[in-house]
């Protein structure tokens, strides 16, 4: 294994795939300068301005041009800079990218990766902190990826770039610099729809993904120290998602807690719970709970932002409530 950070793991994955396939290229604001966090550092020098394309601040066309370029056989990585700005490109994403293959009867192959760093990060306030991945799980035609560590960032990016589906890739920006490790040599693709079994236990199943995963693991470790061993499944991709793994865990624990940084109301946690009740029957599940943010925009002042954050203490409390 090689020690690295999540952002660097992602960079190495893109580098590997761009060396492997000349049809892969990147477009987005400031990518020629390495991107906001160095995700594309050094790539302009290696690949030149035709494959590392710094664009105007024109999100509709960043997204739509990525699609057009895919329709003639290239494989663009569309960098949205921050997730929140995709709102300026929703027609191109929702009406065009997600629809063309179906609407044109299979003629179109919208093989794009849309990278959208999301979530809270350094008190960035309401327009630079959102987590709306649930919207996109609701959208037919796309894959939704939300990794939580360096290894998954790299392996899932490789899969995303090689996929013929449009892949919405939510980089967890609060974890960019989290230390991690990736395998030596070639980065292997990680398949979509396979959860990572992050902790083993029989007391409670916790399902989670993206930036909140480290807090869930901290909570799990604390619970273990108190004698409560929980099963933690990091979904890694929320569409498709690993229903088999969650169902298998629940068959043992009978108790389910879904934790996400996104607003609790209408979040993907509700989908996880409803699907499991459908699949296993209500009597097979003793408790099913969600823990997410309150339904307020993300505030700026650090104490207020902390109020929205899902801390390890909140997770421990929710887990104990689910055990009661």
């Amino acid at each position, binding site marked *: 294994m090689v020690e690295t950070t999540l952002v660097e793991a992602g960079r190495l994955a893109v580098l590997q795939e761009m060396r492997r396939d000349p*049809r892969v*290229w990147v477009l987005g604001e400031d990518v020629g300068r390495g991107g906001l966090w160095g995700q594309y550092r050094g790539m302009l020098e290696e690949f030149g301005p*035709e*494959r590392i*394309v710094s*664009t*105007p601040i*024109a999100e*509709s*066309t960043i*997204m*739509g*041009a*990525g*699609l*057009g*370029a*895919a*329709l*003639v*056989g*290239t494989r*663009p990585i569309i960098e949205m800079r921050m997730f929140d700005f995709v709102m300026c490109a929703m*027609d*191109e994403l929702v*009406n*065009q990218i997600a629809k*063309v*293959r*179906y*609407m*044109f*009867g*299979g*003629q*179109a192959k919208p093989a794009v990766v849309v990278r959208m760093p999301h979530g809270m990060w350094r008190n960035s306030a309401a327009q630079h902190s959102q987590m709306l991945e649930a919207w996109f799980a609701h959208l*037919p*035609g*796309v*894959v939704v990826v939300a990794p939580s560590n360096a290894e998954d960032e790299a392996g899932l990016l490789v899969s995303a770039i090689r*996929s*013929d*589906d*449009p892949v919405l890739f939510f980089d967890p920006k609060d974890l960019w610099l989290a230390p991690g490790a990736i395998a030596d040599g070639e980065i292997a693709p990680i398949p*979509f*729809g396979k959860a990572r079994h992050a902790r083993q236990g029989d007391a409670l199943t916790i399902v989670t993904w993206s930036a909140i995963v480290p807090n869930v693991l901290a909570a799990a470790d604390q619970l273990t120290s108190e004698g409560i061993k929980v099963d933690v499944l990091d979904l890694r991709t929320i*569409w*498709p*998602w690993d*229903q088999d793994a969650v169902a298998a865990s629940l068959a043992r624990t009978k108790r389910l807690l879904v934790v996400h940084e996104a607003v609790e109301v209408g979040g993907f946690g509700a989908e996880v719970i409803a699907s499991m009740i459908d699949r296993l029957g209500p009597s097979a599940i003793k408790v099913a709970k969600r823990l997410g943010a309150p339904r307020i925009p993300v505030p700026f002042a650090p104490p207020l932002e902390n109020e929205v954050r899902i801390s390890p203490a909140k997770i421990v409390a929710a887990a104990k409530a689910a055990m009661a």
Partner: protein
Amino acid sequence: MATAGGTPAAAGDNLKRLTDLYRMMVRIRTFEETALEAYKAGEIPGPLHVSFGQEAIPSGVCASLRTDDRLTSNHRGHGHALAKGADAATMYLELYGREGGYCRGKGGSMHIADFSVGMLGANGVVAGGLPIAVGAAQGLKLLKSDAIVVCMFGDGATNRGPYLEALNWAAIYTLPVLFVCEDNGVAAHTETRTVTAGEGPAARANAIGVPAVTIDGNDALAVEETAARLVAEIRAGRGPRMIHAKTYRWCGHTATDAAAWRDPKQVEAAKTRCPIARLKAVLIERGVAAASLDDISSAARDEMQTGRAGAHAAPWPGMASAFEDVQDAGAVHG
């Protein structure tokens, strides 16, 4: 502005080319007439936008294109598809929502695409095709192809943000795109000039750095000649160009819209500028026999009636196809 009578020799000398141009316009007109008849007979579901009076623009523009050139279209796109080389019978199958249609019955009139002839799709969103067109051009450039992209849109699209974004984009990356604004003066039920500041589409394009020319879009020879020149410039790597082609929408916005707000005299006046009648007069003046032009019309009628009948008789798509071509990973059920 070139006029039908005194058109430059380059286009005018080649009678076969002019006859082909005429044939395409007649085919588009007849396609639309037949589609409208079928619609009124209740055979075609969904919204239908026809393009009577605008046939010269796609016919003239596409006369200079190769099959591997690409085209993006809009909601009023039947003529664009035909001119790019799509097959009328397969288009009718799609209008009817039947098996064998271009989109296997999953798109309909507003989403006809034929990737095999470079037709990258009609679009149900006004200005939706502009970003896609510039990206297709960028992709072709990356692939070292010398194919170009034509982007067809209406005057209504020029007040949406993507108009600014995509023109700027094409200019800064020197992309091989021919933007074609079919300016019929109206967007749905609003005269575009009443909601548009400044001097209009060409002035905006020129200000952004995309050289634009305004022409009479009902003059097929002017369209053809202008497009031929601009396509050659674009293919030579000189960057994007725009044609602002002025025309008139004879019909209502959709097949069910009577456009009753309009003064009927305006429509009658527009019909005296019929692009097909104008080109016909030129051809006859240059010695083409009227009978051979009649043959073109009856061949078009046969083609379209056969297409319509075939579509009407064709089966619906198999129900399983509703669940196909969504996505590979996690299709339908996660």
